[in-house]
């Protein structure tokens, strides 16, 4: 019966009831939602891992594994699945960027991959690419992937290096979007492809995957699971430590064999090289001998030339004397003839001829007659002969004429004969035909006609006979004529003969006549007999002697000339010989130089060979020595806490649960305050009734139970709704967000009972407790006092009133507001905390987004100011490339540097860190080194500057020393002189000078960082520049990041909803309580004539100001929450900024304000509906 009253109360005050219900709903939903997010993540992934038989343990060994190792492990009954596997890391090029790809086995039975798209590979050159439902895949189906290594041949470990992607696979092994470090220069792995196992050619296994029996029954990441795995790993350790030794022995054997082979090979190689050297030496020496021979020959030739020259000189002397003799001869002749030599020669020859002629002509003649007489005689003879010829010629003409006449007669006669013969033939033919006709006629008996015919025939025969006689006579005449012709011809011939003979004689005579006329011209008309004497006299008595000596002289001269020619040709030959000799000399000299060079080279080669041999020897010795010191094969047993993706995921899930435990505290607090305010008001209103019940003798517990039941009912109702809602919404949203970082399977929604119970119990108990405390306060009073109206709370002057100038200026409603705000403390706190919670949540939500996206914008906008890196083929190309870049006006800064990844060792930890070495005054162009807190610039002048996240993780501060490696792996200590703002990766910056001082190594810059101007396309421009190996523009990276972070908006939506509902409930509650408490006052004001606006402002000003206070307090709290959240979701490689953008504050402020205004607008109706009549009611 008593409790019927409770439910009536609920019905009556349903608004308040709903308020409590709602705040519990929000609180519980938030709490169970956040708390069950981590279990949902874990369970979903556990299912995924179980489904793919994900490994529990992974084994690595410093020496790899062989089948004996695997067999040994298989003997253990702890093992459910074992798969020895090979994998290798390689590069592939995709556009401008180099991708680090792991090549893994396709059909592993542990860590089974799931085909998500496409088909399984069928050929050895087909592969699956790693993909993800949330962030896609690096390679797509149909892509061709060409793999390579930079400093060795990939084909040594992988038989096929070019693959076609035929499908996309997923595996929990590579769940995280970020991947582990590859085996290639500590570069981070980008993606994985899966290929047939036969493609791996290594003869040992890289790793062994093991799944344990019974491990799948435990939830992954749970402590039970971890304990079980640790236990199993301990058991396996026995096998492992045994195999470690076995494996080492195998290795020793193998290496020993290799060393021996190496030694043998070395000896052979050196031997071959030595032999080559020796044969070279032999060849050189042979050549040297030839050179010596050549030199001797040249010497001989030189002496020959000398003797030749002497001989020529002797001959020349001989010639000279001959010449002078000839000259003397000539002079003698000149003297004898009295003319010049040349004239003398002609004269002598002529005289000699005349002499001979005279001798010939004159010899037989009388020597008495003179030359003229002889000439005349000769002339007469010629004349006679001429006359005879003329006569003969006349005879011949007559004979020719006779001949012509006879010949003509013969022609006529012959013609006549021909005509007659013709006529005879015709007549004979007529006779024959007549005779034939007669035969016919005879048969016919025509005798007359026959007779006529016979007459005719006879006539004809007579004619024929006459003709024949004529012909015969003609023929006789012709014959006589022909005889005459022949006679004449003979005569003509004889005459002609005579003429010719005469002419010949005339010729001879005419010649003789000429000679004679010449002689006469010379000697005058001397007697014939004195000609010879005259000539002899002319020439000193003996023309023949003169002639002969002249002849001799001429012969001598000809001889002289030929002698001269001989000497000239001998001399020319000699000169040519000299030239040949000179060139032979030069050749020999070159030959000798070559020989010397060859010899020097030979010596050098020998030295090199010796050195090489020594070096190889040392290395072999070193290898032998190392063999002696060979450590035991170290097997590394890794469980899932060392597996990159699992580890990352587990950490993130843990972070998630931390958040799940912290945020509900806020709601807890607000719920308690809301409950307190509401229940206080309720109890106040029920005051007299409580008094009555109390007076009637109900126990305090019984009375209190009414209100506790009221609160419990609200709480339970709220919880019942909250648990499914919260557990569905929050994990879904959070799971979605984690999908940004992990390739997660479909979510398996888990609703852990303990969390539900915890959520319900905590809030319900809290509500009950608060209610109990409130009611107890009232029940302390005695019933009689309860039945009287509650004494109004004494109004007090508030501190504001002491500030008279301010107070005086405030309107009365403001004064009431000010006093009310300060008077009701629990309401004040409820509203302020609630609204502050709302604001801070909003600020947090926006700030998380800011923070994450800022990492990108600050990191790649403010800190890393360069946007392009150029990697050179070699450091030698630096000057040429740098010059080009510096001349480009699109390049604002071009800074040569050297970068490499090093391990950094500190007392606390060791981590990979990116080391950048450059000139200390150039770093400002590409990286803004500054302290995060105060923006103070840092310099690398005195030592190394490290990134903030690294300093935090390793506990290194300024002044500490850390040990890093040089580019060549030398470990040295460097002093940290600055810690710079940096949001991703770990960095160490050091100046070239310091680096060189510390490591004693010369820095060779091989990269250039570029800060490019607006819109510059440097990649295109310089990618083909000689010396440029690679140019990468990473301004696009920023955009990619930004897109990814846009998905974070969903978090913002959830936070706005949660924060908004919190604000709504709290402000609504405050307003409701205010109105109900002051309903009388409101009615009075209305009666006094306050219009609606004035009444609103009277009530809402308070709500508004409280909200404002809440908002202002909430803003810094948002920042604190951000610091807290960011501390929890701490990532290894990323430092989140905890700076809150003004915009986030503004959004937090405005949105909360909007909620306040919304409530005010909603509650106006309630105010309007307050009846003035209320003012007339009595005070209860």
């Amino acid at each position, binding site marked *: 019966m008593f409790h019927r009253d409770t439910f009536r109360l609920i019905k009556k005050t349903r608004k308040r009831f709903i308020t409590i219900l709602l705040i519990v709903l929000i609180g519980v939903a938030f709490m169970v939602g956040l708390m069950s997010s981590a279990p949902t993540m874990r369970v979903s992934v556990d299912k995924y891992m179980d489904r793919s038989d994900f490994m529990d343990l992974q084994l690595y060994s410093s020496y790899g594994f062989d089948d004996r190792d695997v067999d040994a492990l298989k003997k253990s009954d702890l093992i459910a699945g074992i798969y020895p596997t090979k994998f290798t890391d390689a590069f592939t090029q995709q556009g401008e960027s180099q991708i680090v790809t792991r090549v893994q086995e396709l059909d592993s039975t542990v860590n089974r991959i799931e085909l998500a798209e496409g088909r399984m590979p069928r050929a050895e050159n087909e592969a699956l690419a790693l993909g993800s439902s949330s962030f896609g895949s690096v390679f797509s189906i149909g892509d061709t992937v060409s793999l390579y290594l930079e400093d060795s041949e990939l084909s040594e470990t992988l038989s096929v290096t070019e693959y076609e992607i035929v499908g996309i696979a997923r595996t929990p092994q590579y769940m995280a979007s970020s991947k582990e470090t590859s085996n290639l220069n500590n570069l981070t792995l980008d993606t994985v492809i899966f290929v047939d196992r036969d493609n791996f050619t290594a003869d040992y296994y890289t790793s062994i995957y093991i799944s344990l029996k019974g491990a799948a029954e435990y939830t992954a990441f749970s402590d039970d699971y971890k304990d079980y795995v640790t236990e199993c790993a301990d058991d396996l350790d026995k096998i492992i430590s045994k195999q470690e030794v076995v494996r080492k022995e195998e290795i020793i054997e193998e290496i020993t064999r290799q060393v021996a082979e190496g030694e043998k090979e070395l000896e052979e190689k050196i031997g071959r090289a030595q032999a080559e050297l020796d044969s070279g030496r032999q060849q050189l020496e042979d050549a040297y001998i030839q050179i010596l021979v050549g030199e001797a020959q040249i010497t001989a030739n030189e002496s020959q030339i000398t003797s030749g020259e002497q001989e020529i000189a002797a001959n020349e002397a001989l010639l000279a004397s001959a010449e002078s003799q000839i000259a003397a001869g000539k002079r003698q002749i000149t003297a004898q003839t009295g003319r010049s030599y040349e004239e003398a020669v002609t004269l002598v020859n002529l005289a000699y001829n005349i002499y001979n002629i005279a001798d010939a002509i004159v010899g037989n003649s009388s020597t008495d007659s003179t030359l003229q007489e002889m000439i005349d005689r000769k002339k007469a003879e010629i004349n006679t002969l001429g006359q005879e010829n003329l006569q003969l010629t006349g005879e011949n003409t007559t004979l020719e004429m006779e001949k012509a006449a006879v010949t003509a007669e013969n022609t006529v006669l012959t013609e006549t004969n021909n005509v007659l013969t013709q006529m005879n033939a015709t007549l004979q033919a007529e006779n024959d035909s007549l005779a034939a006709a007669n035969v016919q006629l005879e048969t016919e008996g025509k005798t007359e006609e026959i007779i006529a015919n016979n007459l005719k025939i006879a006539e004809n025969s007579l004619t024929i006979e006459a003709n024949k006689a004529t012909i015969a006579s003609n023929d006789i005449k012709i014959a006589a004529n022909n005889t005459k012709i022949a006679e004449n011809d003979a005569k003509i011939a004889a005459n002609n003969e005579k003429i010719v003979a005469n002419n010949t004689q005339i010729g001879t005579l005419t010649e003789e006549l000429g000679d004679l006329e010449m002689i006469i011209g010379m000697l005058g008309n001397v007697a014939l007999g004195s000609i010879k004497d005259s000539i002899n006299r002319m020439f000193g008595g003996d023309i023949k002697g003169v002639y002969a000596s002249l002849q001799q002289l001429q012969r001598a001269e000809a001889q002289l000339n030929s002698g001269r020619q001989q000497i000239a040709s001998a001399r020319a030959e000699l000169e040519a010989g000299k030239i040949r000799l000179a060139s032979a000399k030069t050749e020999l000299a070159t030959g000798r130089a070559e020989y010397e060079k060859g010899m020097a080279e030979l010596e050098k080669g020998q030295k090199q060979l010796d050195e090489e041999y020594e070096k190889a020897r040392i290395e072999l010795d070193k290898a032998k020595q190392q063999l002696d010191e060979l450590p035991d094969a170290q097997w590394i047993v890794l469980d899932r806490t060392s597996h990159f993706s699992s580890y990352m995921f587990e950490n993130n899930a843990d972070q998630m649960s931390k958040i799940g435990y912290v945020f509900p505290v806020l709601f807890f607090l607000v719920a308690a305050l809301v409950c307190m305010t509401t229940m206080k008001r309720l109890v106040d209103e029920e005051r007299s009734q409580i008094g009555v019940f109390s007076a009637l003798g109900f126990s305090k517990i019984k009375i209190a139970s009414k209100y506790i039941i009221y609160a419990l009912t609200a709480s339970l109702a709220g919880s019942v709704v909250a648990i499914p809602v919260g557990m569905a919404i929050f994990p879904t949203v959070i799971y979605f967000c984690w999908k940004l970082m992990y390739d997660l399977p479909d979510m398996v929604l888990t609703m852990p009972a303990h969390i539900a119970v915890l959520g319900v119990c905590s809030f319900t108990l809290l509500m009950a407790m608060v209610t109990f405390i409130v009611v107890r306060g009232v029940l302390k009073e005695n019933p009689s006092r309860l039945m009287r109206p509650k*004494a*109004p*709370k*004494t*109004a*007090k002057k508030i501190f504001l009133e002491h500030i008279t100038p301010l107070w005086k200026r405030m*309107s*009365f409603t403001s*004064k*009431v507001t000010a*006093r*009310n705000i300060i*008077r009701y403390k629990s309401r004040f706190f409820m509203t302020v905390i609630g609204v502050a919670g709302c604001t801070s949540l909003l600020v947090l939500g926006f700030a998380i987004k800011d923070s994450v996206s800022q990492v990108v914008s600050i990191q790649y906008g403010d800190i890393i100011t360069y946007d392009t890196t150029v990697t050179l083929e070699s450091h030698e190309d630096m000057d040429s490339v740098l010059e080009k870049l510096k001349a480009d006006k699109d390049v604002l800064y071009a800074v040569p540097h050297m970068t490499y990844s090093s391990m950094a060792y500190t007392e606390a930890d060791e981590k990979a860190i990116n080391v950048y070495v450059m000139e200390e005054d150039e770093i400002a162009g590409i990286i803004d080194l500054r302290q995060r807190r105060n923006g103070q610039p840092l310099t690398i002048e005195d030592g190394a500057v490290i990134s903030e996240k690294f300093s935090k993780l390793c506990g290194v501060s300024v002044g500490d020393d850390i040990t890093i490696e040089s580019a060549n792996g030398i470990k040295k200590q460097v002093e940290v002189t600055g810690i710079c703002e940096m949001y991703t990766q770990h960095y160490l910056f050091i100046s070239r000078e310091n680096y060189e001082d510390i490591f004693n190594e010369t820095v060779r810059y091989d990269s250039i960082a570029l800060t490019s101007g607006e819109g510059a396309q440097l990649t295109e421009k310089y990618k083909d520049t000689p010396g440029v190996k690679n140019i990468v523009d990473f301004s696009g990276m920023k955009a990619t990041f930004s897109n990814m972070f846009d998905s974070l908006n969903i978090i913002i939506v959830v936070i706005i909803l949660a924060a908004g509902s919190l604000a709504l409930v709290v402000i609504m509650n405050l307003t409701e309580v205010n109105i109900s408490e002051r309903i*009388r*006052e409101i*009615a*009075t004001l*209305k*009666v*006094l*004539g*306050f*219009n*609606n606006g*004035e009444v609103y402002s009277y009530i809402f000003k308070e709500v508004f100001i409280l909200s404002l206070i809440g908002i202002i307090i909430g803003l810094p709290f948002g920042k604190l929450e951000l610091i807290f959240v960011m501390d929890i979701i701490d990532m290894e490689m990323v430092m989140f900024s905890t700076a809150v953008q003004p915009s986030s504050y503004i959004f937090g402020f405005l949105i909360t304000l909007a909620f306040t205004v919304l409530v005010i607008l909603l509650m106006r109706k309630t105010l309007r509906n307050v009846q*003035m*009549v209320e*003012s*007339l*009611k*009595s*005070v209860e």
Partner: protein
Amino acid sequence: MAFIEFRDVCKTYRMGEVEIKALDNINFEIEQGEFVVILGASGAGKTTILNLLGGMDTLTTGTIEVDGRNVSSANDKELTEYRRHDIGFVFQFYNLVQNLTAFENVELARQICRDPIDGDEVLKLVGLEKRRDNFPSQLSGGEQQRVAIARAVAKNPKLLLCDEPTGALDYVTGKQVLKVLQDMSVERKMTVVMITHNAALADMGQKIIKVRSGKIEDIIINEHPKNVEDIEY
């Protein structure tokens, strides 16, 4: 024409199926400066009359005119204006704002009207000038009611409506309050309408309207109203 006229005023409340006639054809007039007492037992309808007169409630049929203004046909906004400028209201339970001092409570009313009387003057009028900075909880009931009257008067209303002003007060303080009301009427020529169930107080009024069961039972013109001092109850 009279200052206040009620003509055929009916007010019916509907409670589910049942109709309750709170006022049934009421007619009366009140002249300016009159001190009128409306007398009736609990539930007789006198508060309803006061509500209608004070512009706090609307009638069902009939008309009410105050100073020539038809109150019965006014809308909410006009009624607010009417209450604001023409009416001063004194409640049975004073209805002071607890968070304001006596003076501030007066000021609260003054700030919303056109031609208010000075706050201190009004407090002096009700004899509470010395308590001006006290909060209601620091004042006795009579004092609180006098502050309430001061608050009503400060608006310089045409009409002062008092709902059982002494209902929550003891005899002596009640008398003090009534004295103040009478003084207002006499000295400031203010029209005062007072509701009471106490017949003894009726003699104060120049006109006494007796109400019973929603109807006017009687209207008495009292040519010689008694001074408060002379009334015993």
